[in-house]
Each structure stands twice: as C-alpha cells, then as structure tokens.
C-alpha cells in the first residue's frame, strides 16, 4: 500500500501568521488616524469581537473593540467572535493578505465564509479595504478596487502608526 504523505506548507503558514499580525495592528493604528475607517467601525458595539482565520491550519486573529477602537488581540485568546471571516484555505487567504486580491473580490469569489450578522458586516469589509489603501502601493490598489478607497491622512502616517502599534503590541501573538 502506498504511504500517504502530505507536505506542510511552512511558507504559507508563516506568511499568513506575519501578515495577520500586520493587518490586525494596521486596523488598530489606522482607525485612530483615518476618519473614514473610524466612521465605518464606530457603529459596532464596545466589546465586539472580529475574528479572521484561514481554514484549516491557520490560527484565528482577533480584534476587539475597546474605547471606540478595534484593538489587536493576537491569536492566543479564547474569544467568541461576533463576526468571523474564515478563508476556505491558506491558498485563498495569502493573496488577500499580500494585496494581490481585495477582500471584496475574495468575498465575490466565495474564498471565505462570513459568520455573523450579514446585514451589519459590510462596515468591517469596507474598513479592511481602507486599511489596504494604507498598506499597499497605488499601482496595486488600482487593480484591487473599482475605485480606490479614499484615505484621510498621509499614507506614511498610517504606515508609521502601524509600525508603532506593532512595536507596542510585539508581545501580543
């Protein structure tokens, strides 16, 4: 009988882990400096938990709304997400995390499932689109969006704040 061997893709797992951390911190950082992102997220109640994971191997990254801002909580917490975005595979999540595909396009291609109240979830997707506008260069953004989300601060401010938040949260894994 042939022995079955499944190769683990450490590269994709690593990318997924690193980029989720960057993305989570970028949401926390940019929502403080961009009124559009702040506006999209202000309707969600305090304590609201948003999770992002890649099925089956990826861990879930959590963001929790505290003092009006979604804060990065890493992947170790035992939270029950109000909104959980589950990519169907690592192959589906990596292009989104690296800016080769917008979260909107991934939604349209059934690349992820969204658990939670669909009627109130669009603000989160739009906010993630705005965060991408800070993280990725213009030539990539033009391919990702029909109309690139407007950002209300200098791109460099968003990036510096993200790096700053990453340092602040470096222990949060």
């Amino acid at each position, binding site marked *: 009988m042939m022995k079955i061997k499944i190769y683990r893709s450490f590269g994709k797992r690593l990318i997924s882990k690193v980029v989720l951390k960057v993305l989570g911190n970028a949401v926390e950082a940019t929502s403080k400096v961009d009124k559009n992102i702040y506006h999209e997220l202000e309707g969600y109640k305090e304590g609201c938990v948003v999770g992002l994971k890649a099925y089956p191997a990826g861990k879930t990254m959590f963001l929790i709304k505290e003092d009006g801002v979604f804060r990065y909580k890493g992947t170790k917490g035992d939270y029950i997400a109000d909104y959980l975005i589950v990519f169907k595979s690592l192959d589906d999540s990596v292009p989104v995390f690296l800016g080769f595909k917008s979260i909107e396009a991934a939604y349209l291609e059934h690349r992820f499932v969204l658990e939670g109240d669909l009627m109130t979830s669009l603000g989160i997707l739009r906010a993630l689109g705005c965060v991408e506008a800070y993280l990725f260069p213009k030539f990539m953004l033009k391919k990702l969006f*029909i109309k690139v989300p407007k950002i209300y601060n200098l791109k460099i401010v968003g990036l510096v704040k993200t790096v700053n938040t990453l340092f602040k949260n470096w222990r949060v894994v």
Partner: protein
Amino acid sequence: MRIPDYFEFHNSVKLLSGFKAISHIPFELKNLNSERPLILTDQTIKKLGLADKVLNAFDGSGIVPVAIFDDIPADAPLNKINEVAKFYRDNNCDSLIAVGGGSVIDSAKGVNILVSSDSDNLMDFVGLDKVSGKLRPFIAVPTTSGTGSEATLVAVITDTERHIKMEFISYNMLPDVAVLDPEMTESLPPHITAATGMDALVHAIEAYSGRQKNPISDVHASAAIKIIAENLIPVVKNGRDKKARLAMANASFMAGAAFSNSMVSLTHAIGHAVGAVSHVPHGVAMSILLPWCMKHNLKMAESSYAEVLTFLKKIEDVVALSEKERAQACINYIEDLLVELNKICKLPVKLGDAGVKKEDFDEIVARAINDGAVVPNPEFVDETIIKEILEKAF
C-alpha cells in the same frame, strides 16, 4: 466570454415543471423517504383554494399530511418559525412542503434549519454557509413568479422583537424539489403579476451584469430574460394564459438559480431599503429602480447590457447597433416596458407614486449602503450615488 479566476455554482433542486405538476408531490415524497409532511402556507393562499389543490394531490397516495400551518405571516417572523418547528417535532413530521410566495418558502427554510439541527436557536445559523449537513426533505410550491425563492440559497427572516431582518445563506437550504404548476399562479391579479415578473427580470439582469457573473449563471439568467421578454406582457394582459404562466414560473426559477450563484446588486440594495423604510412592495421597488441603477452602471456594465438587449429583442432589430448603442437601447427597452405595464395595470413608475416620501431618503441610504448587494455591483457605489438615484427615481 469572461471566465472568472474562480467561481462556485450550485443548484441541486429537482424541478417539476408543467401542467398538473403538483400531482407528483406524493411520488416525490416517497422518493425522499417521507410519509409525514407538514404543509406551510398563508391565509391568502388558503382562501384562493391553492392549499386544497395541493392537499387533493394526496388522494390515493397513501400519504396524509400531518397538518397545514396556514397562518404564516409576511416577512417570515422568527416567533412563528419557532412555533412551527416545535409543532413539527411534537408531531413527528418528517418533511416540509411550502405552498406560497417568498415569505412562506423562506419560513419553511428557517423551520428546516431548526428541525434538522435539533436546535432551538435560529440565531446560531445567521450568516454565510453556517448551515451544514443535509436538511429534512423539503418541497417548495411557489404561488408567484418572481422571488425565485424555490431555487435560492437565501432565507430572510424577521426578528419582530428586535425589528431586524436576518439573512441566512447556505447551499444546504435549497429545496429538494420545486414544483412549478401554472394552476398555482393563475389567480394572481395583473399588478402583482407585473411586479413579481419585473422582480424576476431584475434578478436575471443583475445576475448577468454583476461582478459575480459566471458562465453557468449566465446561461440561467439569459434564458430567464428571453422568457420574460416574450411572456410578461401577455400574462399581465391575460392571467388565464396557462402557457405564459408556466413560462414565467420557469423564468422565475432560472433567475433564482442565476442570482443564487451570481448575486444581485444595486437595484436590490436600494430596493430592500425602500421596502423596509417606506413599505413599498419588493417587485414595485425593483421595477422603478432598475432603469436608474442600470444608467448608473452603464459604463462598467456596457457589454453585459448590450448582450441583454439581444435576449430582449429579435436579433435583426439589434444587429446594426454598436455595443454602446445596444447597451443604451437595453435601458430604453426597460423604460418602455415599464410605461406599458403602467398603462395596463397601473404599475407605478416613480417612487413618489409608490408611497415613498423624500424624508425617508436618509434612512433608505443608510440601510442600502450596508446591504450585501452593493458588493457585486459593477460600478462604484457610495451614499451620495444612492441618494442621487433616489432623487431621479422619485
């Protein structure tokens, strides 16, 4: 034809289409190993005698439905779904038959989630793809030709206590069998026939022109558009035309299958909000908003609209036109169709005539921009654009 990088298509519904199709329901139940069906319907359907027609189909079959729940209200309220699910369990039912329009079929989908999962809390299943596994046997018998609910993976259920509508989306919720029998729709009055028929047309056009379009959904959508173009006006003029009724039922089913796999877009996003805020019937809102939303999308959806015209009109009428002219002619065709329907059965052509007030606009905009149907729209949408469309359609 553009093939998307990746797409999914699912439609597992067995279709029974034709005259006396309802007489096959007992046979289909046996195929599904079911003997104790529970029938769901509403008071209007009961008064029209349509529920009795379905009941009479069981004569001599050896199957007797356990009961008829004939008071399913509009908007599929959560408390009624819990009540029906309890009844289903208490009486050992083993299948569901929904006889009615979108609300009845959506209610049956909600009941089926609960009874199949042994859960008391429908909230556990709110969202996308949260219903897993095979559900109980479920037969849908639509009594309108518009919602396409008999072919869709969506159920919209209302929590009347919290005043919110909850969306459940899962391929597992599709009925096992859809029964399209012209006898079930022939008593529809002309204005409802027109509004529901336009709803089906909007499903098909939006599925064909949206960003989720794929070759398989296109086949369903294009066939639906052709059938509606040929049959909508005849069936509104003569509701007893059984062939046209059957054709429209088929179009509605195909449009439903299309938009289940290539989601509807802006017309629905605004239309849902107009319905919720100003209580305009869904089909009426759809027909008024369609041309205005198409005008907004014209640049990005030009090639799709140009193709849609070839389904709406004879090829010799469009062959000399450029793509740009065809796309514009497609919108003109829809506008002419609405004017004609207005003449025949007074189908409103403006939001103001349908009971919408200008002071409702802000709430409509706030709801529409958060409707999932804005995502597949081919052109960019924001609050300002939605307000402009409302102003124009007013």
